[in-house]
């Protein structure tokens, strides 16, 4: 679109895309009635629970809310640590 001029004259992304990105997050939290801080809290608890069963890297865990139409979804990506479990046994 007018990306060339944008790069030339501005550093900030235009305000419409800022509005859209901010609204995306706000609406997710409004719809689920879950404050942004609560999501972090839940993430920590989930990590603690899962760690009791499998070996995971807490820093690699990603838990996010996603919007699909008017449906909200909690998406968790929890990479397992490659442990040679069999060999260890």
């Amino acid at each position: 679109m007018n990306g060339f001029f944008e790069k030339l004259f501005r550093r900030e992304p235009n305000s419409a895309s800022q509005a859209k990105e901010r609204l995306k997050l706000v609406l997710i939290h409004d719809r689920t009635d879950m404050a942004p801080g609560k999501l972090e809290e839940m993430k920590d608890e989930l990590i603690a629970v899962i760690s009791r069963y499998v070996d995971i890297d807490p820093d690699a865990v990603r838990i996010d809310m996603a919007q699909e139409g008017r449906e909200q979804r909690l998406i968790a990506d929890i990479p397992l640590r490659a442990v040679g479990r069999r060999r260890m046994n």
Partner: protein
Amino acid sequence: MDYSGNGKQMSGKVLTVTSGKGGVGKTTLTANLAAALAADGLKVVCIDADIGLRNLDVILGLENRIVYDLVDVVEGRCRLRQAMIRDKRLPELYLIPAAQTRDKNAVSPSDMVRLANELRQEMDWILIDSPAGIERGFRNAIAPADIVLVVTNPEVSAVRDADRIIGLIEAEEKGPAKLVINRIKPVMVKRGEMLSMEDVLELLAIELVGLIPEDENVVISANRGNPIALNGKTKAAQSFRNIARRLQGHKVPFLEMQEDGSLFGRLARMLRAGGN
């Protein structure tokens, strides 16, 4: 998109216009839809459900003819017909005004359902102008609704409140609501400084039935108490009429919002954009 029902049998549709946030154009949309539907030869009554802050009467230019109001009907001080103010321009357009000085709890959702059911017998369309907010007045307004229109502006606060209200409409089993985006400024959208129709639709994820550009003639026609949809020539006027057509089940394409491509139009836009 056929909301027009089965025609012959006289059972009017109840359409509620709401928004969450105030000042986005609910009353203007209600007045213009009512005028456009009545101009298409349909019997239309609009009800101002904003008790204590009535405005539909002034937008329609009927403020001097009020004798009875919604609360008078509900409390049995007059017959329904007596509270229906007939428009001078369109013989089948009526207004039931809100009470201006009454407690807003004078009317309940079941009162509204009863009233709407009575009006369904004689009218093609019953349009209800909801108050802003999510309290009693809003619940009254959506209680009898067959269709709920949510009006928003392409601004963060209006979109956020629209989303909240859409959720509440779903929870009341009155959904899915349909969306009208009002006061869009194509020049700002083009500059990337206003949410576009596509942005708003992606965020709210409901069906669009109207897209209305910002137009100072809407203010001018409100000053005169003469809804712009009646004989206005501007895109906003046409947009209101198009919504009325869509509600009757016609497939009407959305107007191209971009302004004219004439040399003068382009020059004016360049000057505006340059001046910021």
